[in-house]
């Protein structure tokens, strides 16, 4: 008798307590991307890109009325993100589901206005993922990117996510951003995306594409400037974010350029503080292999390889130097986190520097030491199209 009673009582637990947060998968609106903009009235404009699931299955549905849209965008304005979100929910027949959101776009105008009001919602609401990528839309509104139809993926934000994962540009997640913003001695940066107008590359194609074009530099949660592609890779070297990059160098006297692809990149940083003088040493080490050699050099020869290697090291140093100079002298904000480095390695010195770091940072003396090791010459020494006597042995 007793087991029956127990089972009966347990069953009531199942039917009375369960089910309350049960949602069928087809009652959810999967948000894939979001964009925050500043509306003309000075309110926040939230746009959400929502997947339309039925179209991805192909032609099994109704009579196949051509290519259906794979997503649509809902937007609403509000005094804060929560209000805008609520307004959008009222427009949607399905519950908005944020857990699959992969990218958040922020319009340039909102970036310059300051993003602290829209960020907070991501840190409080447990239904948000901190591993969402966050990006600035350069020269446009976030909404525009959401509305772009990207040819590869079902939904454009997936494409952005894949581009970020591939590691070619600067990928910053909410988590990275929060950590940088809340730490001493480092200012947050963000990836930049730029919609490319159809007229430029893909004429006649209704699909538009977008570019990852560098880095957005923030100061006090306000966008203050951009770094371009080359500067971004310099920044990534300096902040030890570099994973897969390409380095190119010109050798004018040998008649061309060389290029390598990195397979491994590493940064070591040391700092010296002596009175007012602050010195930061960057030791960069990279490993890569040749992909391009337009010079007449036979790079399978050690002395030529050394020559090319030096040129590449020089070029890389220049690239980094350029990026750091821009950050140091023009934006005057420590996006590289050198302050954090000093904080970690020389905590006593940091105590004195802490309060005036913003003014000290532009004066920091940075030395860059690049060492590249190149794994072989690739498949051929000199370019194969050259005659033997044209090559430099």
């Amino acid at each position, binding site marked *: 008798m007793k087991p029956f009673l127990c089972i009966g009582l347990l069953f009531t637990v199942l039917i009375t307590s369960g089910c309350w947060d049960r949602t069928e998968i087809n009652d*959810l609106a999967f948000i*894939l991307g979001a964009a925050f903009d500043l509306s003309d009235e000075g309110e926040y404009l939230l746009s959400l890109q929502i997947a339309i699931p039925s179209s991805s299955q192909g032609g099994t549905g109704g009579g196949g009325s051509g290519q259906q849209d794979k997503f649509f965008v809902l937007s609403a304005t509000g005094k804060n993100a929560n209000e805008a979100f609520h307004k959008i929910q009222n427009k949607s027949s399905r519950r908005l589901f944020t857990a699959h959101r992969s990218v958040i776009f922020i319009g340039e105008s909102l970036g310059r206005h300051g993003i602290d009001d829209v960020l907070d919602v991501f840190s409080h609401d447990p239904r948000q993922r901190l591993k969402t990528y966050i990006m600035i839309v350069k020269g446009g509104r976030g909404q525009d990117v959401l509305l772009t139809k990207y040819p590869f993926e079902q939904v454009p934000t997936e494409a952005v996510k894949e581009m970020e994962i591939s590691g070619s540009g600067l990928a910053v997640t909410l988590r990275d951003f929060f950590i940088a913003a809340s730490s001493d001695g480092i200012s947050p940066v963000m990836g930049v995306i730029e919609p490319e107008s159809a007229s430029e590359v893909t004429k006649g194609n209704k699909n538009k594409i977008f570019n990852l074009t560098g880095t957005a530099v923030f100061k006090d949660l306000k966008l203050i400037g951009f770094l371009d592609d080359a500067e971004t890779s310099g920044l990534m070297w300096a902040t030890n974010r570099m994973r897969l990059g390409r380095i190119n160098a010109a050798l004018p006297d040998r008649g061309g350029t060389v290029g390598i692809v990195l397979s491994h990149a590493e940064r070591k940083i040391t700092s010296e503080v002596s009175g007012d003088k602050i010195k930061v040493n960057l030791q960069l080490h990279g490993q890569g292999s040749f992909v391009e050699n337009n010079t007449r050099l036979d790079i399978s020869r050690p002395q030529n390889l050394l020559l090319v290697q030096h040129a590449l090291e020089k070029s890389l140093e220049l690239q980094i130097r350029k990026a750091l100079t821009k950050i140091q002298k023009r934006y005057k904000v420590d996006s590289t986190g050198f302050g954090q480095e000093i904080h970690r390695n020389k905590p006593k010195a940091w105590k004195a520097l802490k309060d005036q770091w913003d003014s000290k940072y532009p004066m920091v003396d940075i030395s860059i030491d690049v060492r590249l090791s190149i794994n072989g010459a690739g498949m051929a020494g000199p370019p194969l199209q050259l005659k033997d006597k044209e090559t430099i042995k």
Partner: protein
Amino acid sequence: MKRFRKWMHKEPEYPTIPEDYHSEDEESPRLTLDLEQNELIFRRIFHNSSDIVFRKIGMAEQALWLVIFLESLVDEQIVDEHILKPLISNTSKQQEFDTQAEELDDQIISAASTNLSSNVTDIVRHVLKGHAIVLTRADSNAMMVKVNGNKQRSLEEPSSEPVIRGPRDGFIENISTNIGLIRSRLKSSRLKMESITIGELSQTEVILTYIVGIASESLIEEVRKRVSRIQIDGILDSAYIEEFIEDSPYSPFPLLHSTERPDVVAAELLEGKVAILVDTSPFALIAPMTFWTGLQASEDYYVRWPIATFVRWVRFLFTAIAIFAPPLYVAVTTFHQEMIPTNLVLSLASSREAVPFPALIEALLMEIIFEALREAGIRLPKQIGQAVSIVGALVIGQAAVEAGIISAPVVIIVSITGIAAFTIPRYSFANGIRLLRFPMLFLAGTLGLYGIVLGFLGILLHVAMLRSFGVPYFTPVAPLTLASLKDVIIRAPIWAKTGRPHATGMSNPVREPAGQKPGPSQGKQPSENN
């Protein structure tokens, strides 16, 4: 409550059965010296039985011998050759004096197995077992000759446990053949066969078999005690015995290992277990059983051990899938959509777009339909069965998806689960696993992953609590005996499995000497010794 309890446990009133002959405990009538009188006794007992034969042999009006047998049970050729022929040829010689039954036995009847008795009950029982009874004129002892007819099917490959490599004979419905199958594998006088008769009407012969010196005395005693306790009118299959002697009658897991394969029985006997054979049943029971036995196929021991190990792990995986795949699908799609990768969630969502049911109902529906198809496939005549199950699966699977009633992922999940359940080699064990899927589905559909964890813990707790004849069901994993894990997480090579399993083989733990690993050194040893 009290009334309910009373209703549950109400003692039925048994009708009194009119007895044709006296039961054992009463004073049984004995044969008289009068042949006609004796004949009358048996005629009365077997009245209205058309297959009884009373064959009188004698000169003139004087019957010398009376042979009684049931023609449906005996081999008439043996009766002719070894009873009737010698008797008839002896009638002239025996005319002058009356033979005693013992003389018959010694001099005339040339059958292997004979008994003498004057107890009518005893004689009747032997008649019902297929003996021929020879009554003589002036003796109150009757001679009982075993002349069982050979009405049995031939040995076939067991349909419930087929193997690619390994012996192909299986038990049949005749117990002496079954005993022979085991004896031919274990030719030792230490292999014992204890006979117990159970069933008031069926008088079924039940044999306990074990190897003296390997099976522990207490286990043998326990099995013997439990089996001899059974009181029932008839035993029609070993399943009847199983339900009477298992430890936890409410568990979905089988606590006795039932098998059709004599090689399995022999292997288990060598591990110190006790087998129970039941006449008229091709399934032997082996006690005790462990959880892991349910996942071991006999073929594991006949293929190369790395392959057997791999196949075992595949089986572990698919056993888990058989229980957890549909509940996980339901839980994740209705409660934890954030756990699914974005692309997958979108394609799941699109396949569920037109489906009117919640995922739980959908999964339940398909599971039940699958179970119905399976059941129909088994019950239908062989010729139709296959067609019906194929057509049913196709029609229901494909049509339901195309009509938008069931989503395609559910069909995929249910079919994977269906296949997964068939990877479990022991039929009764697979049944238990299949049954568990339904409560798990409900838990998943109401409580999500939390429910699955609860259900999993419940199952684990239950399995860990089970015992089969004093042996923990989950051994050797819990309680852990590392040495016995050799035959659970891997299938160790035969030369490496030197001991018997801890749970049953401890009264004789060594199975083979160590160091028999084949290799060049094996060849050297004898020459060094010589």
